[in-house]
């Protein structure tokens, strides 16, 4: 009697109806769990590592010993050190033996001598410059390639999106050869032959020239994405509105500003946010070009991920500090995405109302 009562109550309860109404979630769950297993779990483990003093080898090696944290997380011979790595990263630097706050008080610009803050500066600068370039190039190309009088539009577009299909590692090695400092480097070669320079320029040997080469390469890698988004947005511009504006005597610029721009604004903005996130996480370009900085100033151009990689996997491999850098980077990225999406009011674009 009492058992059936429980069953009865369960059947009438909210839990049962919630479960049966949400049965379709079972279709989505396997994919979500697979993704979570390889994204969320490593992220969690990374944040745990960043609270220890784990290294690849040596006294605190992750792989020697069988220590665990909270009984389940393997941390090897490493010890829990709390927020020490983060404090080191943000406020002091063992190489300089000086606090960031003191340095900031005496000379605000001197905080960029600290590896982490220098990396932050370079990363944000890279995001700003390369995103501006990508958007201008992408939108400009789309305007040219949707022009009424261009013949073979689809053919040109097909050619122009091919960089998306080229394996990134290949493109980057090719661009490294383009910027090679020797005479045979494509850029040096063309400039020498045009008589614009008299001797080869070491593109990758100077800090800011190398930064410029990163930006150009990133633009080349990412313009197809912006171009595709803008082209399809341009194809959705209301032709009748354009005709009406033309009849009313609006010139090319007025039509662009008052009709075209408002209707492509949202897709382009969305693409810009996504491509900024991609710029923020650029790793291969600076790494393969010159390991994140010219030989004379190693690591000066290290974007945030290059900095984390240098600390974590180039000897002496410090997993904990590298983990802390990656976590700080993920926090910045998450914050950036959150603010951009909220301010851009893009939530409704994705159907979340």
């Amino acid at each position, binding site marked *: 009697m009492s058992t059936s009562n429980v069953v009865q109550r369960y059947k009438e309860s909210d839990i049962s109806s919630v479960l049966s109404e*949400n049965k379709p979630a079972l279709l989505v769950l396997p*994919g979500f769990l697979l993704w979570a297993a390889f994204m969320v779990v490593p992220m969690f483990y990374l944040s745990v590592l960043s609270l220890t003093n784990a290294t690849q080898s040596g006294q605190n090696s992750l792989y020697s010993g069988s220590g665990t944290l909270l009984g389940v997380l393997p941390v090897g011979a490493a010890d829990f050190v709390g927020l020490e790595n983060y404090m080191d990263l943000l406020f002091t630097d063992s190489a300089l033996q000086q606090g960031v706050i003191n340095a900031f008080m005496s000379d605000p610009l001197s905080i960029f001598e600290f590896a982490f803050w220098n990396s932050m500066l370079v990363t944000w600068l890279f995001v700003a410059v390369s995103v501006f370039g990508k958007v201008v190039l992408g939108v400009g190309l789309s305007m040219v390639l949707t022009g009424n*009088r261009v013949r073979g539009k689809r053919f040109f577009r097909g050619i122009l999106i091919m960089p998306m299909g080229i394996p990134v590692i290949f493109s980057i*090695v090719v661009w490294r050869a383009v910027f090679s400092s020797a005479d045979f480097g494509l850029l040096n070669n063309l400039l020498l032959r045009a008589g614009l320079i008299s001797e080869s320029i070491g593109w990758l040997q100077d800090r800011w020239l190398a930064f410029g080469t990163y930006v150009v390469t990133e633009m080349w890698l990412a313009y197809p994405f912006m171009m595709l988004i803008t082209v399809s947005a341009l194809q959705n511009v209301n032709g009748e509105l354009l005709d009406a504006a033309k009849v009313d005597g609006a010139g090319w610029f007025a039509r662009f500003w008052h009709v075209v721009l408002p209707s492509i604004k949202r897709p382009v903005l969305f693409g810009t946010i996504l491509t900024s996130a991609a710029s923020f996480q650029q790793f291969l370009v600076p790494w393969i070009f010159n390991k994140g900085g010219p030989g004379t100033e190693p690591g000066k151009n290290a974007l945030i991920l290059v900095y984390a990689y240098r600390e974590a996997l180039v000897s002496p491999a410090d997993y904990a500090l590298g983990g802390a850098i990656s976590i700080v980077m993920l926090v910045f990225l998450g914050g950036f995405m959150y603010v951009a999406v909220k301010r851009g009011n893009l939530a409704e674009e994705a159907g979340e109302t």
Partner: protein
Amino acid sequence: MSQASDIARLLYEDIRHVALAPYRGAKEIRYTINGLQEGTIPPKKVAWTVVSTMAAFLVTAMLMFPIYWILTIALNPSGGVYTTSGVQLIPDTVSLREFAWVIGPITTPEAISISLPFIGKLFSIPVPGAIANKYVFNPAAFGVENIYTSGQIIQYGKNSAYVALWTVVIGMSVILPGAYGMSRRDFLGRKRLLYVYVLLTQVAGSLGVALLISLYALFNLLGFMDPGANTRFWLAVYYAGGAVPFNTWLLKTYMDGIPISYEEAAIVDGAPSWRIVYEVIIPLAKAGLATVFVFVFLAGWTEYIVAQTILGAGQYTLPVGVYALSPASPGFSVAWSKFAAFSLTFAVPLMLVYFFMQRYIQQGLSFGGMEG
């Protein structure tokens, strides 16, 4: 089978369209000249067409120049990147020697055998001695001197194919139901999850670098990287997981375009739900399925950083091999012309895939199907 033939037909039409482009162009030019002579087409309009097409051509040529430059290097092994003669717009000598070096010697096998992962060799049939171990393709005929250093692309390609195939099998088996559920059913947190997926489209791939440390540590601790372990398989599982957000969302937007009345008709006729999916949804979403298939395949085929960190020397996939051979890598590297030929052999098929799939990719990235 009809899906495959439909896709083949679409592809055939696209290729035909591209191949006949010169013919259509010639027709239009003749028509325009006629029109100009008869005065029915204003010359100003023609001038505009010529100027804007030229502008589009110039921009395209400039952006693609580095790739063309690499092609000229691959085709002209005697010159190569190290000569001071510099860039040649049209190489003075053209030879396929380096491409022959890339492919390497191909001989007939001594035995045909089939094996499966985790199970091992299924069977092995010896080939008669008269036709075993004979050259099918001998690079020496193209002037390749040391044929024994060549042909690594075959081994790298095999590794890549192994990883990419498992990525596709695992990925598609979770993406297809996921996309169907997102498109046709409602459940708690559906919109929120969809939104997360959309935001992750550009981020998911490169998150791998940020997580590289813990991925490496976890793979190590779980024994995925032990000498006897099947590292390539676990790498494929990782790629499949990373490919879920973007591709689920992409396929969902395609399925949204299929009118729901088809399904309703099938329900009225008494079809069970598996049959609705198999006979209504899949055939109507085939363009989307093909696109997603290609993206998931390429996720396994082209990824570099994680593969380079996780895989051991004998397990290199193509991207890792390309970098290992490149003059930019610190260790063993080959001449520029060999590297150029090797990486073009790897990249050109992918470039062609993107060229022909342009409109589907554009459809997928248009963000037009985000409502709902």
